[in-house]
């Protein structure tokens, strides 16, 4: 049984918390019956953090005057994988950025690193003028 949930938000940092909360409650809702409490907590936290990072990146990299740019967060659940994809209309980017060099006390740039480590699979693709970052993890 597969279910799809899509969430379209304005690209504004105000909505980061809403996006990550939605991700966490969907992850917990869909995973509920097959997991122990701690497993479903870890599963939900992974999506909460992954969506926060991806959404914040979309917002911070949005061009200056794009006040009305929208970000779409889509959840696709096909037992046992949950895939969340974030799409925005920013410039293309790559996810192969090297992990920040810790000695230089980097103050940002951990986002993609965290996503790659927390999620089983992370795919970036360009569809027309849309970036689509798909991240999936299985129960």
């Amino acid at each position, binding site marked *: 049984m597969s279910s799809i949930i899509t969430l379209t938000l304005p690209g504004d940092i105000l909505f*980061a918390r809403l996006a990550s909360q939605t991700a966490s409650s969907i992850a917990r809702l869909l995973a509920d019956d097959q997991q122990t409490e701690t497993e479903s907590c870890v599963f939900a936290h992974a999506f909460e*953090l992954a969506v926060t990072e991806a959404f914040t990146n979309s917002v911070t990299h949005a061009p200056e005057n794009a006040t009305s740019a929208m970000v779409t967060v889509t959840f696709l659940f096909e037992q046992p994988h949950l895939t969340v994809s974030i799409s925005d209309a920013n410039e293309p980017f790559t996810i192969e950025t090297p992990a920040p060099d*810790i000695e230089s006390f980097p103050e*940002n740039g951990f*986002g993609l690193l965290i996503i790659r480590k927390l999620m089983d699979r992370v795919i970036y693709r360009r569809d027309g003028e849309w970036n689509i970052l798909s991240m999936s993890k299985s129960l």
Partner: protein
Amino acid sequence: MIITETSKGDIAILAPDGKLDHDSAPEIRQNRSIIDPDKMVVIDLEKVDFIDDSGLGAIICALRNKRNANGVTVLSGMNHRLRIIFEITNIHKLFNIFDDVAPTIEYLETRQIERT
């Protein structure tokens, strides 16, 4: 997110409570003890249940503000979730991390005696 600040001797102990993300990170960055390059600071993360890229950035900027390594910023009381994030990003290499505030204070007090 609310930060309760206490001090022991001239060591400042910051205890943020809640989520350390884009909204709350500035509160850490603009905190007086974090900015003061000579102030010894302990950040007690026990009540932090969520940290993201901007939260990590705020903590690293605390370290960056210190004049030299021994203006040490030390972390304590991290829960399991945070520990994974620190390990993923290798940030744990930059900090002295204790599982409780008390041992952290002792460690700092010994460092203080060495320095003076």
